[in-house]
């Protein structure tokens, strides 16, 4: 999983999958098409930064306890306007 956390022992595989799903749903995170990978680009980190900045969390681009906790809170999932158009 492309979660850029060097020391991710605190999160299980399910946690990481949950975080990725969250970013796909709310931050338009796109899956990399099979076989194609952009060099030096980590879209998960970018989306995490976007989310952390929106919620006023410390912007690290890394999944930490506080970010994960916020992801678990009940929320609205307004459909992505770009995709809708």
């Amino acid at each position, binding site marked *: 999983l492309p979660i850029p956390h060097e020391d991710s022992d605190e999160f299980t595989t399910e946690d990481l999958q949950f975080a990725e799903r969250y970013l796909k*749903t*709310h931050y338009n995170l796109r899956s990399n098409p099979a076989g194609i990978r952009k060099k030096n680009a980590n879209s998960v980190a970018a989306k995490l930064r976007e989310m952390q900045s*929106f*919620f*006023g969390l410390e912007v690290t681009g890394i999944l930490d306890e506080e970010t994960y906790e*916020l992801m678990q*809170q*009940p*929320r*609205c*999932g*307004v*459909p992505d*306007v*770009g995709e*809708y*158009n």
Partner: protein
Amino acid sequence: FFPRKLKWSKNNLTYRIVNYTRDLTRAEVDRAFKKAFKVWSEVTPLNFTRIRSGTADIMISFGTKEHGDFYPFDGPSGLLAHAFPPGPNYGGDAHFDDDETWSTDSRGYNLFLVAAHEFGHSLGLEHSRDSGALMFPIYTYTGNTGFLLPDDDVQGIQALYGAGDRDPNPEHPKTPEKCDENLSLDAITELRGEMMIFKDRFFWRLHPQMVDAELVLIKSFWPELPNKIDAAYENPMKDHVFIFRGRKFWALNGYDIVEGYPKKIYELGFPREMKTIDGAVHIKDTGKTLFFTGDKYWSYDEENQVMEKGYPKLIEEEFPGIGNRVDAVYQKNGYIYFFNGPLQFQYSIWSKRIVRVLKTNSMFWC
């Protein structure tokens, strides 16, 4: 706003409730949606009319998992609802996850509050980063009666449609800014090592190991407590926090309100005609709690649960220099901190004098 500031080009909009949840009666669902539209029509020239057949601008439905729009819901909690921005077809439509438990109070997810948020999207508002705004994306219970649309949402919707001429409550609550030069406080207490600093509908949590204060709605912790509380203090021996508003006071044990509360302040020994308490502080060394009201203060013996004789006394007499009223007060490390408007006075219990005058917002390292 959504990209290109999507909005409706007309002010008269229709809505249709396509189906219902089984968690509530049909009348309760109808009322929740009607009230949610009213939130927006009161501050804009928009009018909403319900239709019962055909295609409305805003089609409202309950569904679970994949429900026809390729934005599936996810079972209980997580995603609660979503709505499309203004436009044809799906545009404006609002969908509610029927795997949630919907309620008209705080027991489940409050349908009115979620609907009011979703209809904000239906009208063209994106999510707000103001945690006090209705359009903040995280669900927070804000009480069941007297909902007032926060200022941030009013600014947003009026930027799209202009102001209406029938706003019955023109005072829209603003989210307090901790570094506001003129910040004044309602109450302060400790709770199990954290500081809780109350202001309007909110309190800030300040933990010794946290670098920044967290702003939380009072209702999201204690749905039954009122907003704008007058005073608060912790009795660590009982592990209770006492909250005062008007003539009533509540005892809290963590998230729970202790059975038998609220009580009336005269039960503590105050005169029956007393209307409010401005500030309260528990002094651990003496086991006494000081209550400040107007220009006087009282001392309460927690062990014997009686008001001490010889009180009230004038604040000016015992604590000269702090002014003749107190907004909020707390004690730490041998000092009492008195808050009066944008100033706080650090008073040494040992030397019985003010040792420092600080700005109120210095609580937050501003």
